[in-house]
């Protein structure tokens, strides 16, 4: 009987468990959406890559409450027989900064995902955020620290030339590679590594073959490796045309 119950629990175990937590550190309130993903499965980043669809969080709030998203963590690259996807495994934790005039706003998140292994299953849930029992920030430090930092201004620029984009980094310090967080802009690959050109590091990125718009900004993550230390930097830059 016990074995049957255990088997039944395993069979019915959801592939993604979602929850919402309020976090208060004495200064500000953050809301964390946590998606725990079954072992061996993955869900997709904002830029899902060649396949899948993005994980989404849509908020319903009482009047005046705003949830400001913090940046997403850097996804993993999943290569399924040459098709490249940008995914999260085990756990995805997303953070939002709450701005509210009211002390007790009503907040609900509609979270949707596509969870895949060899096959895919869409899922969604609604999560009501309980602000009355905030969690200590320390419990979320690992994921908060993993959020990419904003790359210093004036150091990088993005140039579009024909069917390619070039990121130029002035005064490079270490090695850099790049992952796009914007769907359908550049070809989906493992992070593309930069190389030296004069006193700069340049990263050349092929345009996505399915691109059907002319983006004006370029968003993604620059991964810097320096003395065996890795730093993930977020870039959000205007695109300059070379013509």
């Amino acid at each position, binding site marked *: 009987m016990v074995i049957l119950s255990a088997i039944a629990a395993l069979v019915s175990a959801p592939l993604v468990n979602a929850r919402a937590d309020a976090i208060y550190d004495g200064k500000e309130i953050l809301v964390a959406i946590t998606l725990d993903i079954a072992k061996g499965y*993955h869900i997709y980043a904002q830029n899902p890559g*060649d*396949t*899948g*669809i993005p994980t989404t969080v849509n908020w319903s709030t009482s009047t005046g409450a705003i949830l400001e998203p913090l940046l997403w963590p*850097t996804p*993993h*690259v*999943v*290569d*399924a*027989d*040459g*098709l490249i*996807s940008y*995914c999260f*495994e085990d756990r995805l934790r997303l953070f939002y900064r709450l701005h509210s005039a009211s002390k007790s706003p009503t907040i609900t998140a509609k979270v*949707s995902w*596509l969870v*895949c*292994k*060899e*096959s*895919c*299953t*869409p899922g969604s849930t609604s999560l009501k955020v309980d602000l009355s029992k905030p969690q200590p920030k320390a419990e979320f430090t690992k994921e908060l620290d993993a959020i990419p930092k904003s790359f210093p201004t004036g150091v990088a620029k993005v140039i579009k030339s024909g069917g*390619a984009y070039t990121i130029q980094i002035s005064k490079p310090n270490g*090695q850099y*590679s790049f992952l796009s967080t914007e*769907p*359908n802009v550049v*070809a989906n*690959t*493992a*992070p*593309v*590594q*930069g*190389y030296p050109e004069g006193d700069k590091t340049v990263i*050349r*990125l*092929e345009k*996505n*073959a*399915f*691109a*059907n718009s002319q983006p004006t900004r370029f968003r993604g993550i620059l*991964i810097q*490796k320096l003395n065996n230390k*890795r730093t993930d930097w977020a870039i959000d830059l205007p695109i300059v045309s070379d013509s």
Partner: protein
Amino acid sequence: MLTTITIAAFATALLTQQPTASPSPKIGEPAPTFVANGADGKTYDLASYKGKFVVLEWTNKDCPFVKKHYGSNNMQQTQAKAKELGAVWFSVCSSAPGKQGYLDAAGFTNNLTKVGSKAVTVFMDPEGKLGHMYAAKTTPQIAIIDPSGKLIYNGAVDDKPSPNPEDIAGAKNYVLAALEEAIAGKSVTVATSRPYGCSVKY
């Protein structure tokens, strides 16, 4: 087979990458030629369809995104409308044997009947050759070839990348839009779009 590339590992493993020549067929250029095996036992040579619009639809009956479009009858209605417009519609399954969506010829034919598909047949592409020629990444994905043999569309069925059938009502059907514009002698406004759905199970 799924492979996860951890970013930490890749940093040391990757060589400096330069843009590589895209294997994707180019819009406005001659579509890749092929001779395909249909589930109906016939062989189909793209060259013999000069003078007609040809639609290729990548499919996998167990993919939730394929189910969205067939379960809602959207795909069948799109196929019927395409046929009215004079297009010839073929489904393509590039699933490898043993992978999701793979069937034998009888299985494909039975499934066409079961779902009420208006496709002529299913091209069986278990080695993925046709899929790779057309850069098929997802199911569903649609490629359209014009009567002169040029590729005029490659991408998603519509502009609502979701598995929810309720989203079809407000979606722009890229396939019919491309066919209607091309038949009217206009250039196709949206000739590519990010295909969405399950990975093709090569």
